[in-house]
C-alpha cells in the first residue's frame, strides 16, 4: 500500500454504444437514441437526450416503448462487431498517451500519468479527450486522481461537466468534492452495501472516507475497507496492464422465440461450443470440463417450468471443437425433456489450462492429434479472414431459427469488407 504520487486517469467513453451508432449516422446526432441488449430485452446505452426523457439504464424495452414512440427515440439492437472495432481504436489511441494502461472494459481504461507534471495534468487530459474524439469520433470523460477509486469518482463528476475532465490531484477542497458524491455512486459499493451504509449514516463518499477503519473492517469486508482507504488516497488497487487469462468461458443466449425441439437445441449448443472453443483457442487454452444447461422461462408456472444442467469431465484437456461438440450434445440429450418451451441454453467450459503442452492419452477418444489441431487452426484462420462463421460445422445449422432477435441492428462493421459504412456523392 502506498500513500502515493500516483496519477491515474480513468477515461470513459460517453454513452459508448450510442456514440458508435452515431459515428456513421449523423442523422441521429442530438436526438434521443437508445441501444438494446441482446434479444432486444433491456436498455443498455442511452444518449443524453434519452436520459432526460427519463429512460433508465437497464430498463426493459417494453416498459419504455411508450416514451420511445411518443418522442421518436431512435432504437438500435446491439452491433458488437462495430462496438468491438471502435473500442480497439479508442484503446490504441489512448495507448500513446501512457506506456502503462489497463483496459477495464469495452469503453473504459485506466492510464498511468505519473510522468506528467501536476500543473500539466489538466491540459494533458484535454489533449487525450480531443485526440480520441478527432481520431475515433467517440466523446469521453476523464477523471484524474491518485487512486483508482478516486479517479472513478472524478470521472463520475467529469461526465456532467462541459469540459469533460476533472483533476483531483492537489485539490484543496477534496472533502467538499467527496461530499457531493452519493455513497451508491462510489466505485465498489453495491446495492446491499449502500443500504447498510445509509442505515449507519454514511450517505456520501466523504462520510465513508471519515469513517473509522476499525468500524469498516468489523462491519464490512476487505473490499469495504479497501474502498475507504482508496478514498483517503492510499492506493490499494494497482494498474493491471495484462488481462488475466480466463478461468472459465460461458456462452449462452436466450432464444428469439421459444424452442421445443431437440434438433434446434442441438444447433444452439453446437454454435455456442464453436464460439467458446474459438475464444479459448485464441487465448491458447484447453478445456477439461463442459457444463451444458437448458431452462424454460422462469415466468412459466408450475409444471411448465424445467431447468437442468449436466457436467462432463473430459479425459484430457482439449480445444478441439469437434470433440467438444460431441460431448456437449450427448450431455444435452441426457437432460432434454420433450414438451417444454425452452427459453435459454448455454455451455460453460471450465478447468481452462494453458495449451503449451497438449496432453496425449492413448486410451482416450480425444487425443489432440496433429491433424485435428491443424484443422482447428485452419478454421480459425479462415474465419478471421473471411468473417465469423465463414467455416462452420453443419450441425450448427444455417437458418438458426432459435437465434436472437435483433430487429433494429445497424448493419455496419468497420472491420469487415462486406459491411463497411457507406458515403454518398452529391
Amino acid at each position, binding site marked *: 500500500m502506498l500513500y502515493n504520487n500516483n496519477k491515474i486517469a480513468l477515461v470513459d467513453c460517453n454513452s459508448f454504444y450510442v456514440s458508435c451508432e452515431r459515428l456513421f449516422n449523423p442523422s441521429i446526432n442530438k436526438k434521443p437514441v437508445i441501444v438494446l441488449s441482446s434479444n432486444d430485452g433491456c436498455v443498455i446505452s442511452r444518449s443524453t437526450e434519452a436520459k432526460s426523457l427519463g429512460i433508465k439504464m437497464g430498463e426493459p424495452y417494453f416498459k419504455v416503448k411508450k416514451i420511445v414512440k411518443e418522442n421518436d427515440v431512435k432504437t438500435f439492437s446491439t452491433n458488437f462487431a462495430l462496438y468491438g472495432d471502435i473500442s480497439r481504436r479508442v484503446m490504441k489511441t489512448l495507448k500513446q498517451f501512457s506506456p502503462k494502461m489497463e483496459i477495464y472494459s469495452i469503453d473504459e481504461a485506466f492510464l498511468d500519468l505519473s510522468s506528467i507534471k501536476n500543473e500539466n495534468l489538466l491540459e494533458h487530459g484535454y489533449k487525450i479527450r480531443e485526440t480520441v474524439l478527432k481520431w475515433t469520433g467517440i466523446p469521453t470523460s476523464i477523471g484524474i486522481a491518485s487512486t483508482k477509486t478516486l479517479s472513478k469518482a472524478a470521472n463520475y463528476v467529469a461526465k456532467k461537466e462541459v469540459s469533460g475532465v476533472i483533476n483531483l490531484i492537489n485539490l484543496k477542497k477534496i472533502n467538499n468534492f467527496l461530499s457531493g458524491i452519493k455513497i451508491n455512486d462510489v466505485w465498489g459499493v453495491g446495492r446491499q452495501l449502500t443500504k447498510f451504509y445509509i442505515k449507519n449514516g454514511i450517505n456520501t463518499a466523504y462520510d465513508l472516507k471519515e469513517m473509522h477503519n476499525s468500524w469498516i473492517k468489523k462491519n464490512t469486508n476487505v473490499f469495504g475497507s479497501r474502498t475507504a482507504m482508496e478514498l483517503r488516497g492510499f492506493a490499494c488497487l494497482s494498474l493491471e496492464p495484462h488481462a488475466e487469462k480466463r478461468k472459465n468461458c460461458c456462452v449462452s443466449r436466450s432464444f428469439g422465440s421459444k424452442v421445443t425441439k431437440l434438433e434446434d437445441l442441438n444447433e444452439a449448443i453446437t454454435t455456442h461450443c464453436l464460439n467458446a472453443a474459438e475464444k479459448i483457442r485464441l487465448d491458447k487454452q484447453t478445456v477439461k470440463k463442459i457444463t451444458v444447461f437448458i431452462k424454460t422461462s422462469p415466468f412459466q408456472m408450475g409444471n411448465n417450468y424445467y431447468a437442468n444442467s449436466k457436467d462432463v469431465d473430459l479425459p484430457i484437456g482439449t480445444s478441439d471443437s469437434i470433440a467438444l461438440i460431441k460431448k456437449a450434445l450427448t450431455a444435452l440429450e441426457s437432460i432434454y425433456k420433450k414438451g417444454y418451451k425452452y427459453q435459454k441454453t448455454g455451455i460453460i467450459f471450465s478447468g481452462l489450462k494453458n495449451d503449451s503442452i497438449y496432453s496425449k492419452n492413448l486410451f482416450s477418444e480425444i487425443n489432440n492429434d496433429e491433424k485435428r489441431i491443424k484443422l482447428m487452426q485452419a478454421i480459425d484462420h479462415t474465419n478471421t479472414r473471411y468473417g465469423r462463421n465463414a467455416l462452420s460445422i453443419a450441425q450448427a445449422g444455417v437458418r438458426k431459427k432459435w437465434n436472437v432477435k435483433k430487429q433494429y441492428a445497424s448493419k455496419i462493421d468497420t472491420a469487415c469488407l462486406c459491411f463497411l459504412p*457507406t458515403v454518398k456523392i452529391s
Partner: protein
Amino acid sequence: MKLLLPFHLQKVGAGFPSPATDYVEDDIDLNAHLIKNIPSTFLIRVQGKSMNEVGIHNDDLLVVDRSLNPKNFSTVVANVNEELIVKTLIKEKNQSFLTAGSKEIKDKINLSENPEITIWGVVTYVIHAL
C-alpha cells in the same frame, strides 16, 4: 485484415532451382502503405454516383483518415444535412468551401455560413476495381 504479397525483383523461371530466391525482398504490406494511422483510419464504400473529376466511382473503397487536417483541394468526407458525403475542400481568402469536385461556383458551400457542417475525415486513397 491482413494482406501480404511477396515482392519479386526478377521473373522466376520453372524447373531450375530458382536463382531469384536471394532477391525476394520483404513482403509488401498494402495495409502499411495505405494506412498510416491505424486507429483513426476507416474504410468506407462509395454508394450511388461517381465523382469523375477526382477519380472516385460508385462502389469504390475510400481510405479515410480522421486524424488529418484537410488542406486546400483535399477530398473529404463531410457531415452535410445529416448525411456523410464526399466533397472537395477549397480554401480561398481565409474562407473554406465544399464543392462536388468541379471548379464551378454554383455548387460551392461556404463553411463559415454553414457552421453545422463538419469535416468527418480526409480521404487519402481510393481503391477502385477495374
